């Protein structure tokens, strides 16, 4: 990506203007290791990819609404180095698996019942999502999930994929 070309500055400025949610200071995403349905996942393994880290729970209605969109994003941008990591906060594992049977996830689902990772990321509400760029820095965070947010989220995603 040619750095500094007029185009990048223009696009990034536009996106930041359009996207209004609270942007964390651009700081390093804390690493973590969490179990998944197939072995473990470590955030640092995903270096070089754009990661959409999402904290969700089966009992939270807006989280349920985000799953179809997360699937679509994973399918559309997967090959371009985009990975969704959905951290489930349910206290019991079978609540989560019952949910996943009804709403299948085509992306990585990790489990954090005790909430340590959510604590590290100071999650303020459910669902909460963090955009982590290719060199592991949190570029944006977003609380809640509403249908009308999806186009902004996708713009942010596209701009991060281009960097």
């Amino acid at each position, binding site marked *: 990506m040619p750095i500094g070309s007029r185009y990048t500055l223009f696009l990034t400025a536009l996106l930041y203007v359009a996207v209004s949610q609270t942007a964390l200071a651009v700081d390093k995403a804390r690493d973590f290791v969490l179990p998944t349905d197939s072995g473990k996942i470590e955030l640092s393994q995903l270096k070089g990819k754009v990661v959409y880290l999402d904290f969700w729970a089966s009992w939270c209605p807006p989280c349920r609404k985000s799953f179809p969109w997360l699937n679509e994003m994973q399918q559309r941008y997967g090959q371009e180095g985009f990975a969704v990591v959905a951290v489930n906060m349910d206290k019991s594992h079978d609540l989560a698996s019952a949910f996943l049977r009804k709403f299948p996830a085509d992306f990585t689902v990790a489990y954090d019942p005790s909430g340590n990772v959510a604590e590290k990321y100071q999650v303020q509400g459910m669902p909460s999502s963090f955009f982590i760029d290719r060199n592991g820095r949190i570029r944006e965070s977003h609380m809640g999930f509403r*249908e009308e947010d999806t186009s902004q989220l996708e713009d942010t995603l596209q701009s991060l994929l281009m960097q």
Partner: protein
Amino acid sequence: MQLDERSSLRSALAAASCGLLGISPALASADTPDNFQVDSALLYYAEKDRVKVAEFSGIFTQTLGEDETISLSPTIDSITGASPTGATSTDKTQTFGTNDTTPANTLPVKHFIDHRFAASVSWQRPIDRLTKTVLGAEGSAEHDYTSLGINASIARDFDNRLTTLGAGASADFDTVLPASGIVPQGLAPLGVSTNTVTAFSTPAEPVFKQVNNGVVAHTVTSASGTIIGGGSTSSGGLDSIYIPHQSRGKEVIDGHIGLTRVINRRTLMQFNYGLGISTGYLTDPYKIISMIDGTSGETVGYITEQRPQNRLRQTLYWETVVHLPEDVIHLSYRYFWDDWGIRSHTVDVHYDFELGHGFYIEPQARYYTQTAADFYHHSLIDGASLPDYASADYRLAQMTSYTYGVKLAMPLGQDGELSARASYMKQTGISHPADAIGVQTTQDLYPGLRAMIFQIGISFKL
């Protein structure tokens, strides 16, 4: 291109080309289905020897968008049976007008039939992520009472949705149209005589009919006592004069503020303060008061009741919901006081026994007590000076009420529920007050009330 997905590539390309040309292959619509929630119930309320009510009510809610819903709630009641007139029983038969008599030692009641149609609409809309507003309107109509009202409320979450502050207000404009067509003069005697309103006819039959063959039901005087119309009931009497149905208006304004707080992972609490002001015609046009002889306690006559023209009501309400290991308990307390001298305590508890898979049993219990209104009198002494206001309506007497019930529920499909509920309500008051005189001491001056309530309900999402 990965070699392995070749055939899917062709179908993807075929779909894309069709898409472009507008011959789209059938694609499942991915947008979230509009969901439409239905809650409906049939209720049967039956008092022993008294009023019976059959009621259908429903709440139909359509989701409009993110956290935005509009709901319509129709209600249809049919009320039949007998309701106390306010007169006390005595040891003699009592007559209240042509063919309207009550045997000795029996509570005078009035039989009636009434239908009520009511509907309310409520539109909930978020202003921003943390604030939601509700705007609503309601109306109801019976043959002798109509009501129109609007309400609005706002609620905002604080402290990461642990705390919610809310406020709301409502205004209702009601109209009372007594079935007799005449709004009775308060505390005015009602004897069987030509110059006063004779006994009330049953609501179904208005006092005055405009008929061409000159049939006149009763002699009628206006509120100021002048004779307005009358005449014989048979051939060619005076031309009947039709008096437009008299009515009185009433305004009720209510406001409340509320705080909801998450106490811990299992407990939620709510505190509300409510203030209500009612002004206008607050009297019940059908209620009368027995006039008794100061020494013998015999009933010598009746007068109509008269309540103040305004009332200031206040409530303090506390509710908590606690999630026990499996079950959930709802507990609430309300303190009510008003400037009519009524003080009331209410405790209500619902205990939700979870049976698993959506089945639950919910025993419910409610304790209610109230002091009497300052102007409540079971009867008045004939000849003594009349107070400014007086009513013998049991609902304003000192009274305690217990209600016990149980609700059973089972799941219906994805998020639906079938439920049945039965409860028993018992009201008791002071049957033998200290100020009973002579004959009254042999009578039950507060017969109280026993009622059974049965309800079946169904709720589902479309």
